[in-house]
C-alpha cells in the first residue's frame, strides 16, 4: 500500500460512484448506444477498483479484454441490429416491473446483510504479496492451475468456431421447400432499408 490512505478513499468513492451510476445508466437509459458507451466506463472503473486492490495484471487484462474486446463487440452488434422498432406493448408490464424490482431489492438487502454481519477473517497486510502478484499469477497458471488454463484455450477455440458457425449465412443454390433458385443478395440489402425511420 504505497498510496496514502486518504487518496485511496477518494479514489474508491469516485470509482464506486462511477460504477454504480454507470450501471444504472446501462440498464435504464433509453438509447442502447449510450448504454454501450457507459458500459465501457463501468469496465474502466472496475479496472480502477482492481488497481486499488493491488492487482495490476488483472486490471490490465480487464481493460484489454472487456473494454478492448467485449465492449467493441457489443457496439458492433448494436450497429448490426440497430433498427428502430416500435415494441409491442405488454399489458402486465407494470406488475412485472414491480415484482422484479421487489425481488432485486430483497436480494440486495440479503447480500448487504451478509456483507455487514459476517465476520471476515481479514489477513494481515504484512505478508501481502503486493506488487509481485503478476509473478504469482504466472506461477499459478503454470503449476496448479495448468489444466484449467489449457481447457480455457480449448474453450476459446470452441467459442470462436461456434460464433463463426452461428453467425454465417447458409448459402444454398435452391430453396429447400419450393426448389426455386434463391437470390444470393444480402438479406439486409433485400429487405426494407433499416435506418430510414430513425429519429
Amino acid at each position, binding site marked *: 500500500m504505497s498510496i496514502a*490512505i486518504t487518496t*485511496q*478513499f477518494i479514489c474508491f468513492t469516485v470509482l*464506486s460512484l462511477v460504477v454504480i451510476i454507470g*450501471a444504472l445508466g*446501462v*440498464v435504464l437509459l433509453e438509447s*442502447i448506444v449510450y448504454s*454501450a458507451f457507459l*458500459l465501457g466506463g*463501468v*469496465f474502466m472503473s*472496475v479496472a480502477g*477498483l482492481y488497481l486499488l*486492490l*493491488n*492487482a495490476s495484471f*488483472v486490471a490490465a487484462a*480487464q481493460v484489454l*479484454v*472487456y473494454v478492448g*474486446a*467485449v465492449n467493441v*463487440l*457489443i457496439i*458492433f*452488434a448494436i450497429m*448490426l*441490429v440497430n*433498427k428502430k*422498432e416500435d*415494441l*409491442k406493448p405488454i399489458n402486465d408490464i407494470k406488475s412485472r416491473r414491480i415484482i*422484479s424490482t421487489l*425481488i*432485486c431489492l430483497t*436480494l*440486495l438487502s440479503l*447480500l*448487504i446483510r451478509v*456483507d455487514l454481519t459476517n465476520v*471476515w*477473517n481479514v*489477513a494481515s*497486510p504484512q505478508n*501481502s504479496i503486493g506488487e509481485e*502478484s503478476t509473478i*504469482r*499469477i504466472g506461477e*499459478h497458471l503454470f503449476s496448479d*492451475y495448468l489444466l484449467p488454463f489449457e481447457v*480455457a484455450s480449448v*474453450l476459446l477455440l*470452441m*467459442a*470462436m468456431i*461456434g*460464433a463463426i458457425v*452461428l*453467425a454465417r449465412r447458409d448459402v444454398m443454390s435452391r430453396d429447400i421447400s419450393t426448389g426455386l433458385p434463391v437470390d444470393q443478395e444480402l438479406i439486409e440489402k433485400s429487405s426494407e432499408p433499416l435506418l430510414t425511420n430513425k429519429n
Partner: protein
Amino acid sequence: MMSLESIPIQAFLIVSSVLFCIGIWGLLNSRNAVRVLMSIELMLNAVNINLMTFSSYIDNNLIQGQVFTIFVITVAAAEAAVGLAILLSLYRNRVTVDMESFNLLKW
C-alpha cells in the same frame, strides 16, 4: 468502529452486491436483447470484484482469487462472442431484437 488504516472489505462487497442486483434488474426488465447481454456482463463484473476483494483481503499471499478472475474474464469473452452470434442469427430470422418475440421454446 472500523480501523481506518485501509478501505474496509465491506465497502468493496457492497459495491459488488449493488452492481450484481443492477445486473439482475436489467436482465429481467430489458426488452432489447443487446441490453440483456450487457446486464450479464455487469453481473460477471460484480462477481469479479468479489473474487478480487477476497483475494486481496483474505488470501493476499496465495492470490488464487486473481487466477479465478482471469478465468472468469476468459469465459466472459467467449460468452460474449457466442451470445452476440446467437443474437445476429436470431435477428436474421426474426428481424427484431425484442425479447418478448423470442418465444419459440415457450410452453
